[in-house]
């Protein structure tokens, strides 16, 4: 059986599962559409939230970034998990007590103005749409690679699949589909890692294997990896960094961005009780950690495997002949994500760091005239089973897992967008008399429009997916997180302060990113080159969300203290969300009409 047929079987079987669940769990009412009937067990909810949260960026990209950057990219590991601590303690239980459907619901009611609600809707839509673009692009790459179709065709297939189960299933359909997707993606991620860990270290658990000795030696894997990369002029894999400021701010930005992501927060409205919201955040992190603790092992082992493939006699000896390159290099060459250029015309593949002046004399001694192999970081996880010569069913499995990761996140984001449009914008602001049926129709139409928009932008991406995702995190960190936190922890912050804070945070963060990455991400329009020398105080555009958040807090407090205190009923509302007592099931949508 060819690899193509095996991939088709795995991807097809996983799809049949998702569609079956979506049809079985078809949402009947508006409430079910948004919050799954309020009856999702914390462990199940945690698993679904983990699938919702772990996107193509976590599954496909992150290990590649870790492999390329080593220690400095630990920011992704800490940043994308540490946010759940903030969520569990600072937001989730109180928002569950508040008992509405959406993030703008809380901001609009707590800051008693449609202006605040509108600001929250705008921030939410910008965050989610930019995030979906990255997912569509990621799903498109995975589909096109494994189904051997054009990239554009891959994106349209992805759009069709997301449309069917998100639009017809609603939250209930998505919740159970995402449980299935979590199972698929975690198995797909773990199995190749276990095989590779056994091959290299003899330890079946990758997170321990990473810190073990290599098979039949007394040399730890990481020490060996450090030796190999440094022999080729790269920086040490585990070495410390000199500038800690940017690493600090980037980690913080990812953490508070995580806690402020509307499609993640919305999941905690679906648990039965306030106490369950706390437990559920913990379970979510347990399920996320299963992938995140394996990722650094995948990264270090894949980097070592890759270098061993190129230098089979050791990094001091000659690298392999191009004609003898393994099959996986040939497959990926077709996608253009691996490229070889024989700069010194010796027919061999030299892979080393030609940007390191200290290594130049060594390279010249060996007759090397520049690095000859470019490997895109994003293929590392997908190519990993092939690099380690694992059986072809493992490759089919990883295809299904990558697609599950991208689609589950896209579906969750689309649900957040559709509820913001139909519920917050149309029902609460434009036409409060809309029927339940009309509201559901509006939700589905807005999902369809969002999918089309994201697909279009995914076909013509405004930049690398990672840049787009970074913008989503920066904006979430600088806008929604501070507004939500102040809404719960301060009785003094009023409508004017919250609106001013959100808008200043939004504009500051977006402008800083556009200055370096191009206005609206249009290539060639960047005002400054995106290099550390140009950054303000050495703060990269990826890290600026932290500064935006600080500015948001400062502006909101300053404006609030110089204007009137919120009315008594708002202060009572804050009192009420702070205690779990009296939290009912999420109220029926019709009760929202009465106030």
């Amino acid at each position, binding site marked *: 059986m060819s690899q193509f047929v095996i991939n088709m079987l795995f991807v097809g079987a996983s799809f049949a599962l998702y569609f079956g669940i979506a049809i079985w769990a078809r949402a009947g009412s508006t409430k079910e559409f948004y919050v799954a009937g309020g009856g999702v067990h914390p462990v199940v909810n945690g698993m679904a939230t983990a699938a919702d949260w772990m996107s193509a960026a976590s599954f496909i990209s992150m290990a590649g970034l870790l492999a390329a950057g080593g220690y400095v990219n630990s920011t992704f590991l800490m940043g994308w998990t540490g946010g759940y601590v903030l969520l569990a303690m600072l937001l989730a239980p109180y928002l569950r007590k508040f008992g509405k459907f959406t993030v703008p619901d809380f901001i609009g009611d707590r800051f008693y103005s449609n202006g605040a609600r509108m600001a929250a809707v705008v921030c939410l839509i910008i965050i989610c749409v930019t995030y979906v673009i990255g997912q569509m692009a990621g799903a498109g790459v995975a589909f096109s690679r494994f189904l051997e179709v054009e990239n554009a065709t891959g994106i349209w297939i992805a759009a069709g699949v997301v449309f069917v189960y998100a639009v017809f299933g609603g939250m209930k359909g998505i919740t159970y589909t995402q449980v299935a997707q979590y199972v698929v993606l975690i198995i797909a991620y773990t199995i190749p890692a276990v095989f590779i860990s056994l091959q290299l270290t003899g330890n079946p658990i990758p997170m321990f294997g990473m810190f073990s000795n290599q098979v039949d030696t007394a040399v730890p894997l990481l*020490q060996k990896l450090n030796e190999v990369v440094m022999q080729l002029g790269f920086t040490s894999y*585990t070495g410390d960094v000199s500038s800690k400021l940017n690493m600090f701010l980037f980690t913080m930005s990812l953490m508070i961005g995580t806690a402020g992501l509307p499609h993640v927060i919305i999941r905690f409205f679906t648990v039965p009780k306030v*106490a369950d919201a706390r437990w559920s955040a913990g379970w979510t*992190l347990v399920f996320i950690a299963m992938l995140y603790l394996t990722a650094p092992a995948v990264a270090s082992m894949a980097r070592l495997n890759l270098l061993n493939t190129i230098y089979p006699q050791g990094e001091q000896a000659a690298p392999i002949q191009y004609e003898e390159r393994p099959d996986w290099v040939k497959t990926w060459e077709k996608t253009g994500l691996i490229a070889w250029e024989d700069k010194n015309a010796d027919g061999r593949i030299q892979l080393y760091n030609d940007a390191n002046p200290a290594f130049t004399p060594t390279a010249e001694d060996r007759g090397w005239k520049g690095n000859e192999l470019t490997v895109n970081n994003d293929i590392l996880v997908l190519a990993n089973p092939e690099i380690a010569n694992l059986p072809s069913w493992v490759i089919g499995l990883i295809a299904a897992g990558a697609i599950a990761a991208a689609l589950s996140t896209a579906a969750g984001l689309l649900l957040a967008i559709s509820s913001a449009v139909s519920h917050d914008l149309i029902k609460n602001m434009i036409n409060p008399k809309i029927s339940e049926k009309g509201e559901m129709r509006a939700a589905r139409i807005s999902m369809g429009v969002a999918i089309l928009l994201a697909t279009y932008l995914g076909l013509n991406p405004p930049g690398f997916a990672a840049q787009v995702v970074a913008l989503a995190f920066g904006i979430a960190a600088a806008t929604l997180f501070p507004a939500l936190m102040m809404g719960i922890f301060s009785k003094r912050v009023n409508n004017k302060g919250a609106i001013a804070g959100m808008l200043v945070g939004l504009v500051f963060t977006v402008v800083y990113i556009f200055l370096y990455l191009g206005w609206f991400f249009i290539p060639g329009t960047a005002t400054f080159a995106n290099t550390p020398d140009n950054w303000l105080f050495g703060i990269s555009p990826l890290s600026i969300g932290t500064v935006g958040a600080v500015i948001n807090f400062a502006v909101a407090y300053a404006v609030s203290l110089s204007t009137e205190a919120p009315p008594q009923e708002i202060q009572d509302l804050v009192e009420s969300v702070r205690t779990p007592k009296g939290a009912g099931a999420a109220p029926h949508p019709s009760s929202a009409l009465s106030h």
Partner: protein
Amino acid sequence: MVSEKNNAAEYWKANVRLITMCLVVWALVSFGFGILLRPMLAGIAVGGTDLGFWFAQQGSIISFIGIIFFYAWKMNKLDKKFDVEE
């Protein structure tokens, strides 16, 4: 007997105290051991590298899980103590 309002204020104070304590640990294992204090841990070897690297790549995540479950457990006790549970 304390009034309901005082009780709620006391409950909130206890919650904020607990959150502050948890956030100190949260910052220590990630920003502390994983980033800023890494040079201080350089002497403690872990599988071919040092403890700071382990905290940055695995230790912080494991600690985060511990913090959340500790917080949820303590809050359940606080909810009962102040009689504000659902």
